[in-house]
């Protein structure tokens, strides 16, 4: 009986859920689509938040950046939870192998002294920057309108703690299995002059009060930091006999390339929106005009200290190049960050 059943072909009566058929036509939907599109409620919220009575529980007005159709943005990586944790599990496993290799060959101890100081005094403290990035991204996960953006922000938030832990594990290794290097790094984050610009920047970004503005501010700083610390310095390290710095940096550089994919897609969706695109572009220009110079100043302060430690590093110059590249990629979206407004806010 059962065997007969199993050979019988039973035609499905529908291919997927109705809201996906209405959006994409009568075709089977991917697991990304089924697990993402439309999950956030949009109507009949019962009560106003006690902590924000002027808004609904989910409300486009939590940001100046608005999409007419929130699902005009989708994650180009198509990440839902299962592939997300699988990908990150591999990232951390691969990082763990790198770190094991460095430790078992005692390579961290053989880092040139300047690079060791660079790592401990200027890179490890960025675990706190990553923690700030987590909080900004978590805020975006809560307040973004629509599941697609919120989901990307939510994973990005967890990524940031992961990045912080990557840095922390490097610190534990540098400390010979103790937390000494981490303690030193924290003291530097709090007091080292080279880092105060960046700390001020993160603290101010965290209280900007508009999740979209906060995310853009974070991304502007990321774009400079990641370009310089994990790409530019990666090459400098290889030439300067600090191969283990390069081996570690590749994991964070790889992460940022992945992060860029969804953030760039979001900027594109914002600026391409048929109804709100022009206003979004204007907001983006204003936010960039306000925050990019601040980010550049803060990261330059940090990189100046790098150039002091490693004289041929050219880190300050790399920041300026990265800032130009940010301006250029915004311009490609039709977002003009005027030099004048840059100077004003600087």
């Amino acid at each position, binding site marked *: 009986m059962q065997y007969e059943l199993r050979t019988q072909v039973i035609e499905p009566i529908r291919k997927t859920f109705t809201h996906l058929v209405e959006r994409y036509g009568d075709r089977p939907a991917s697991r990304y689509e089924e697990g993402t599109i439309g999950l956030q409620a949009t109507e009949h919220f019962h009560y106003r938040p006690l*902590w924000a009575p002027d808004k609904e529980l989910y409300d486009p007005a939590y940001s100046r950046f608005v999409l007419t159709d929130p699902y005009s943005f989708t994650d180009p990586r198509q990440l839902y939870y299962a592939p997300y944790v699988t990908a990150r599990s591999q990232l951390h496993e691969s990082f763990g192998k790198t770190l094991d290799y460095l430790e078992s060959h005692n390579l961290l101890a053989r880092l040139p002294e300047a690079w060791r100081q660079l790592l401990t005094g200027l890179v490890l403290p960025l675990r706190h920057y990553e923690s700030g990035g987590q909080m900004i991204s978590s805020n975006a996960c809560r307040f973004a309108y629509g599941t697609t953006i919120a989901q990307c922000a939510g994973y990005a938030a967890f990524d940031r703690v992961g990045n912080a832990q990557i840095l922390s594990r490097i610190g534990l290794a540098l400390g010979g299995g103790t937390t000494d290097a981490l303690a030193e790094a924290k003291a530097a984050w709090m007091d080292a002059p080279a880092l105060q610009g960046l700390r001020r920047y993160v603290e101010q970004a965290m209280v900007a009060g508009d999740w979209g503005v906060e995310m853009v501010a974070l991304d502007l700083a990321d774009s400079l930091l990641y370009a310089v610390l994990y790409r530019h310095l990666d090459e400098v390290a290889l030439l300067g006999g600090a191969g283990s710095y390069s081996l570690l940096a590749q994991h964070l550089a790889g992460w940022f390339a992945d992060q860029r994919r969804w953030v760039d897609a979001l900027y594109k969706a914002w600026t391409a929106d048929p109804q709100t695109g022009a206003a979004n572009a204007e907001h983006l220009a204003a936010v960039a005009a306000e925050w990019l110079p601040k980010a550049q100043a803060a990261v330059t302060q940090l990189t100046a200290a790098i150039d002091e430690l490693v004289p041929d590093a050219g880190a300050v110059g790399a920041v300026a190049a990265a800032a130009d590249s940010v301006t250029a990629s915004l311009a490609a979206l039709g977002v003009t960050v005027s030099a004048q407004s840059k100077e004003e806010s600087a």
Partner: protein
Amino acid sequence: MTATPTRPARKLSMKARYSALTRDLDWEPSYVSSAEMFPYTSFEGIKIHDWSKWEDPFRLTVDAYYKYQAEKDKRLYAVLDGFAQSQGHLSLSQASYLNAMKIFLGGVTPLEYQAHRNFAFLSRHFNGPGPRFAALCQSQDEIRHAQTEIHTLSNYNKYYSGMHSFLKQHDRVWYMSVPKSYFDDALSAGPFEFLIAIGFSFEYLLTNLLFVPFMSGASFNGDLPTMTFGFSAQSDESRHMTLGLEAIKFLLEQDEDNVPIVQEWVDKWFWRGYRVAAIVAQMLDYMLPKPVMSWKEAFELYFEKQMLEGLFPDLEYYGIKPPRHVQQAIDEKEALSHFVYWVFYNFSFAANFTTSIPSTEHQAWLAENYPDTFVEYFQKPRWDKAQRIVDNGGRFFFMGLPQLCQVCQIPMTFPEPGDLNTICQRTSDYNGEHFNLCSDGCKWIFDREPEKYVQAWLPVHQIYQGNCGGPTVPDVLAWYGMQEGDGGEIAGSRDEVNWAAWHGTPAAKEA
């Protein structure tokens, strides 16, 4: 040393490693004030003196989280794929089993998603890194649950009715406003109340009732994917339960002034959650063709024994008493599921699931599990008469719209304390308007925060205001996105007819 050669000698202990990697990321802001950075953690009146006192017994780090969660999902999706490829849906106990899953998908899945969003809120806005990280993990877990539920049930949606429009229906269908308003209530509260509402009252006190016996039931009824998903989700829930328990202890230990505030939240959210659980009660007792554990037994095992006898004596140390109105819940355990399934039997013409008179064997099981109530209060006055109506060629439906409770939003069906023959009706007047409540518990909740509950989007009232597609039942059902075959009577339903055809057995006579 030689006993564990695979463990590196310099490895930090789990506790030290967790602390270095997670707890120590915090810093005191200098360029903005603490109040600017954490604007939401003072208005509720909760006082926290030392955020570092928060303990997370799981001591999970991000790399371990990814590793184990990826492994869990690998196993789960392998089961889902195998089940779909082998047409496993044909080996369910009955097509009607899926009625429970239709309610689950529309009623519970969107809540998991909401939890994902609001734990993200906590993971930004708590002042301390310990609770922020715990909330962050839970936020990730909750989107996992929403998605794995959808992916688990997606295969059934291809062959069965009632699941196709679960998102729209969560926002619109009359009974869905019960779970929706419950969660909206928690989200609209401050971060500490949310933590007690969802983290403690829901995850710790009640979630076992929702998931453990039910998933065991799924297993017993041939639904391997749901069982696998459910137990896999529960392995996350045990972390969430621990977070909930840690949350309440942390708040109670921080300041004595927190105790009365927390007590009121425990009181409110126990009752709010218990009313939502009423829907699960009827799933356990009526919707599983092969029942495994009655609501009453589950309530005794997972609530009375584990919570009232196990947990609350611990909380007594802090001055916390068992939830106000808990006695009413205990008294109702003999009758809760029967009242709620009867509501669904009355109204399934306007729902995404079907109902029927329980079979003779099923009624015998109910009588055996509820010896003091089922036969006298439910079988004789209700089911026997419903059967007579069917025998005469009819089917009893409630041809109108029910009176809803302003707080829990369930049709006002619940009994007066100590009197199963009389519906409990309570009222409150606020700002010159009359409000109806189903119980002393819901009335207490309303009177505490009437400013909140007057905003309730009550489906029945909205239909009468003309906000739900039109004045007639077909108008409203179209607005709900219902399709032919979604609701009504099981006998002769689309699912039943298909099931019979697929199994080569004659369908039951159409009612």
